[in-house]
């Protein structure tokens, strides 16, 4: 209900309108079902359109989508869980499934899956696994996400880089060439210092398990992670990446346009954003490529979002129908067209449009080489600590060895309760 108000001051009319318009929760239509869904970022902006078609197929069901920014999503979801105000259907990054599973916030989907026609083999292997916790399927993969290089081909070619790098050494050389060509104030790649994806991916590429002993201790001091960490720090030390956090760049699309840097490491939603935000003159100049690894094409992150059914939903039947609807191959393709997010179902990839676009093809290629993050409930906090320590090392506030030692110490402390619970489970026997 829209209140077309100007910026005028308060008035009684406002009070009356407000009382009338705002019924607190539960104001459903007579007999109709009101489904609430939370979605993040661009997905949140767009899924409403798909939901309209769902509503047409299911008269009497209304879907209300609320968009939540990624930066606040984790907090908001947890707060809502504690406060008992979670929606019916939600979008969850698959690195959060373990956490919300431990909180018993998610309804297991196995019974509904058995009755439906959804086949797990139709989904990218590895992605499905990230949704299964202790034998229960807690999420339905919605779209897959992995990180790879987005770059401006014209700037690279101008610097003499004709072939995309496939190893770390080649990558460093390419970035150095771009930086030399650009001059002072110009860089090769934008790696926000307050994001954990890249150090973690580099660690995975290097063979580090990140957590040891069944996910109860940190493994950051081990040589595998160390190697990746050194490479990561080197990019900043050599001036190939600016020492900036994500919010210190006013608008990264403008900076890419201006040539402040030539590359970014980011995900599929940027396909849509680049198309929207970069000027027409540059639309032919940008492309994507898989990530380089230590000795050859490298792994990337097995990410993505899943659709989950929150326990305590008052309309689980209708909610599941919505999740099924969004998993239909046509809907997955339509979603991809609107956001650039890649379908989780292989059947959707059969659509010619997906195969034809070279930029999307790079994602398809990278998706063959992915690895997941450790599935522990504390992962979000551990990931935050990782980038915080990396940030300190980048800025020279701590030497790398101390940073990694401190990281291990902190992570060990964070996982203390997990160790205690595991020990308790062993002591009590398999029935606990």
């Amino acid at each position, binding site marked *: 209900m829209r209140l077309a*108000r100007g910026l005028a001051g308060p008035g009684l009319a*406002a*009070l009356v309108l407000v009382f009338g318009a*705002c019924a607190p*929760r539960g104001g459903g239509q007579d007999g109709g079902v009101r489904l609430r869904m939370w979605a993040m970022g661009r997905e949140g902006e767009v899924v409403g359109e798909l939901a309209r078609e769902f509503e047409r197929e299911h008269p009497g069901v209304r879907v209300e989508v609320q968009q939540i*920014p990624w930066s606040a999503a984790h907090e908001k979801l947890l707060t809502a869980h504690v406060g*008992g105000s979670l929606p019916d259907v939600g979008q969850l990054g698959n690195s959060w499934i373990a956490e919300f599973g431990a909180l018993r916030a998610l309804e297991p989907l196995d019974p509904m899956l058995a009755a439906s026609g959804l086949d797990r083999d139709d989904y990218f292997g590895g992605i499905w696994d990230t949704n299964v916790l202790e034998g229960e399927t807690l999420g339905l993969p919605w779209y897959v996400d992995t990180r790879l290089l987005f770059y401006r081909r014209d700037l690279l070619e101008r610097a003499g880089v004709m072939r995309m790098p496939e190893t770390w050494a080649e990558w460093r050389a390419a970035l150095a060439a771009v930086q030399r060509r650009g001059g002072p104030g110009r860089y090769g790649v934008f790696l926000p210092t307050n994001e954990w994806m890249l150090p973690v991916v580099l660690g995975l590429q290097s063979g580090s398990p990140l957590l040891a002993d069944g996910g109860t201790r940190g493994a950051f001091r081990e040589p595998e992670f160390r190697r990746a960490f050194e490479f990561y720090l080197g990019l900043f030390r050599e001036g190939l990446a600016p020492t900036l956090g994500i919010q210190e760049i006013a608008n990264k*699309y403008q900076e890419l346009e201006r040539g402040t840097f030539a590359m970014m490491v980011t995900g599929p939603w940027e396909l849509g954003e680049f198309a929207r935000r970069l000027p027409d003159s540059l639309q032919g100049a940008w492309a994507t490529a898989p990530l380089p690894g230590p000795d050859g094409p490298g792994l990337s992150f097995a990410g993505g979002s899943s659709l989950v059914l929150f326990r305590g939903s008052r309309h689980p039947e209708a909610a599941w129908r919505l999740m099924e609807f969004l998993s239909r191959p046509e809907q997955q393709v339509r979603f991809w067209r609107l956001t650039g997010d890649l379908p989780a179902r292989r059947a959707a990839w059969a659509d010619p449009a997906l195969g034809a676009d070279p930029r999307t093809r790079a994602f398809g290629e990278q998706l063959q080489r992915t690895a997941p993050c450790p599935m522990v409930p504390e992962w979000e906090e551990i990931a935050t600590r990782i980038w915080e320590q990396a940030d300190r090392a980048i800025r020279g506030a701590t030497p790398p060895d101390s940073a990694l030692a401190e990281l291990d110490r902190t992570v060990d402390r964070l996982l203390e309760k997990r160790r205690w619970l595991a020990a308790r489970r062993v002591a009590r026997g398999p029935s606990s």
Partner: protein
Amino acid sequence: MSAGEAAGAARAAGDRRGPGAAPLALHAVLIAGAALTVAPILWMVSASLMSPGEANTAPPPLLPGRATLEHFRELFTHLDLARAFANSLLVSVLGTLCVLFTSSLAGYAFAKLPFPGREGLFRFLLTAMLVPAQVGMLPLFLMLKQLGLVNSYAGVLVPWLASVFGIFLVRQVALAIPQDLLDSARLDGAGEGRIYTSIVLPLLAPVLATLAVFVFMSSWNDFLWPLVVLSDERLYTLPVALASLMGEHVQDTELMMAGSVVTVLPVLLVFVVLQRWYIRGVMAGSVKG
């Protein structure tokens, strides 16, 4: 206070002799100070009228090349900021009424109606002013969760139902009510309720007006509590809606400035119109100690 002010004004009017440089320098400093103080607010308004991307250029422009209202349009149509505005209004008005009601009664009682343990109880309540609000916030959240009040208007209103500061302020003024006035009313046979509504309330009117403005402003600007309690965006108050907007649109400088304008301008207007009461409240709460 008024005598001093009057005397000061008279002197300022009469003291026009002396070197002309001093007053000039003084006013120059005062005006420069005023300019610096007001500059961020002016820029906020100016940037809200700029075209997208214009504010992110070097050197930063002071005025829009071509003023546009598109960001405001976007806020009120696509982003539904009007709803947040209405929510803030609802919560602030209701909260103010609640605090006025409870504080005027209690403030009068603590000043003029002796009951056993009154002074001790008042001193105990005062200790609440020392405890930072954040101490009780988490448990209060858990408590509201048990009561099912999370994510509702009622939940947001909970901190604004009663106020130790309000009681303190009202009591301060109520202490000055002549005792004979009340006693003779009692001897005339008036009940306590009648005495309160027909004698005390009119005398408390100025401090209640002040308290009203205070509470309205504070609840309008409150951020942490609504942030924690509200998860449904349709219930967001303005500050929370603005912070949420920031999450998605941090790169859209001009849009964010428009959002800030919508949040700040109403309070500024209320202040300009009602400054006498607000200022009186600030001074009353302090000078009398």
